[in-house]
């Protein structure tokens, strides 16, 4: 579906893209994470032809969008990071405009607007002007404008900013459904737990390129997690689990084990240290999270 390789773009002395590679297959949700300035927004703008890259190519179903953006545009639904809606028009009017821009006849567009509004909990506000909507409602409406023509590629840039947990769940369900129906989704976010809900694969961008790409489990396995064991007295000198892969740190009554799979280290360690185990109080397992992975990759 989407195959971007070696995209570069400079704005004066600023390098926005420095060899940006990303692929997304039909039905796949790619969670694109990275701090501001990592190149995520420029990448999206390249795909819709708003920015011409200095080099590299992006193929969408075989069409090089960096050279021929016109035939590719109907295939892309873009919800940019900054709100881009008509504040004096109603939510319905905004949606009907974007449906029309993508060539959807009026009657079909009305039906599609109704479906999307239902799914994104916007039905009650369809006839209200955008400037009267809350930030979260505007954000969902923006996502709806990107989805109204059911594009095979969705580019959603932080769609859940300002959303409460209920509307966030609704939005994530709509995105998941679009992917289940075959759309490729590039989903940019700073809320990494959303990517677990979406069952997304992961791409971490930094400095204008993707520095890590893969499924979450595979990438998480590269990052250590922690187990915290509390004793009712200082545990004294301890023997390791024997695997040699963990680091141990004792701080008063607390032992912190840092290891790729901390749960696997706990049992052997306790077995090898029966004296300390007799004074065991609690065990807390902290497997690596996407936040840990992100921090690890970006700081590296």
């Amino acid at each position, binding site marked *: 579906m989407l195959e971007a390789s070696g995209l570069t773009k400079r704005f004066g002395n600023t390098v926005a893209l420095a060899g940006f590679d990303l692929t997304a297959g039909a039905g796949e949700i790619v969670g694109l994470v990275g701090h501001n300035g990592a190149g995520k927004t420029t990448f999206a703008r390249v795909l819709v032809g708003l920015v011409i890259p200095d080099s590299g190519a992006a193929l969408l179903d075989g069409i090089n969008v960096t050279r021929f953006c016109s035939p590719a545009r109907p295939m892309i639904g873009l919800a940019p990071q900054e709100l881009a809606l008509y*504040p*004096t*028009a109603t939510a319905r009017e905004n949606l009907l405009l974007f449906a029309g*821009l993508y060539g959807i006849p009026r009657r079909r567009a009305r039906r599609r607007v109704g479906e999307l509004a239902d799914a994104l909990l916007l039905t009650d506000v369809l006839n209200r002007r955008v400037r009267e909507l809350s930030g979260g409602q505007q954000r969902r409406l923006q996502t709806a404008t990107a989805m109204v023509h059911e594009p095979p590629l969705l580019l959603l840039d932080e769609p859940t900013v300002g959303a409460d947990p209920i509307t966030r769940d609704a939005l994530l369900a709509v995105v998941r459904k679009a992917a289940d129906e075959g759309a490729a989704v590039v989903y940019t976010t700073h809320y990494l737990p959303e990517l677990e809900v979406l069952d997304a694969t992961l791409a971490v961008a930094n400095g204008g390129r993707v520095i890590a790409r893969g499924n979450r489990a595979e990438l998480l396995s590269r990052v250590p997690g922690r187990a915290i064991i509390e004793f009712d007295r200082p545990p004294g000198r301890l023997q390791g689990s024997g695997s040699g892969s963990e680091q141990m740190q004792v701080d008063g009554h607390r032992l912190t084990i840092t290891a790729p799979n901390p749960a696997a280290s706990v049992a052997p360690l306790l077995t090898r240290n029966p004296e300390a185990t007799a004074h065991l109080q609690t065990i807390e397992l902290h497997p690596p999270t996407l936040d840990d992975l992100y921090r690890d990759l970006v700081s590296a």
Partner: protein
Amino acid sequence: MRAISGVRLAAELRHQSVLIARDPGPLIGYTLMAVLLATATRPLYAALHQLTSRQAASGTDQACAGMAVMFSLFALKVAAAHVLNERTWHTWDRLRSSPAGFSEILAGKALPIFAAIALQQAVLFGFAALAFGLHPHAGWGILAICALAWSGCVLLLGIGASTLARSPGQLSAAGDIFALLTTILAGALAPVALLPGWLHRLAPVSPGYWALKAYNAALTASPAALARPLAMLALFGLAGIGLAAVIAARARLRSWISRQDLLPSGRPAQ
């Protein structure tokens, strides 16, 4: 160039009409002001006409033509504001990233604004016909051609102005100054013959000057006198849209130049 799609154009026309209808204040205000000022200044224009031509006149022709020119120029700000809003609302990029082509987007935005400016003039002349018995010497059809030509010119100048302005405040201030200067040079407030010499010489650089000439030809002379003013209005309109096109092209050119700078050999990227 992409083919114009009926569905897309209809959606854009409908949407732009909604945007104008949601914020009709400026256009209604300028129309009412034109009607009121035309009513109030009729006696003044009658007196001026007698002074300059030593013939009696009602002053309606001059007052209506002058106010049509002046308040259409203020409506230019409305046209420019609608284009500028697309930038401040960040919707311009959304439109550009859609399958709609530039000409289609422009047509979708411009036609309803054009209709609104033309309607403003129709209300003014319609009021003058009903209240003061205005009857164009060259016929209503010719007057309508003048009004449409001037509306088109104002619209295209407005699109050009919107590409220069960086903020609504800047647009408003520059628009007011431009409208007033153009109105003065047009002879819409006082006949050009009565202006100071240096302003008199500058008058033909004002699109309003040619608009007033066109209106005067339609109201008091014959269609033959219309050709040159209409041609001049077309030129001013082309200058407005040309300015917009140049500024739009400049961004692409800048991008192209930066692309060449990156390549050590100077060859275009493959």
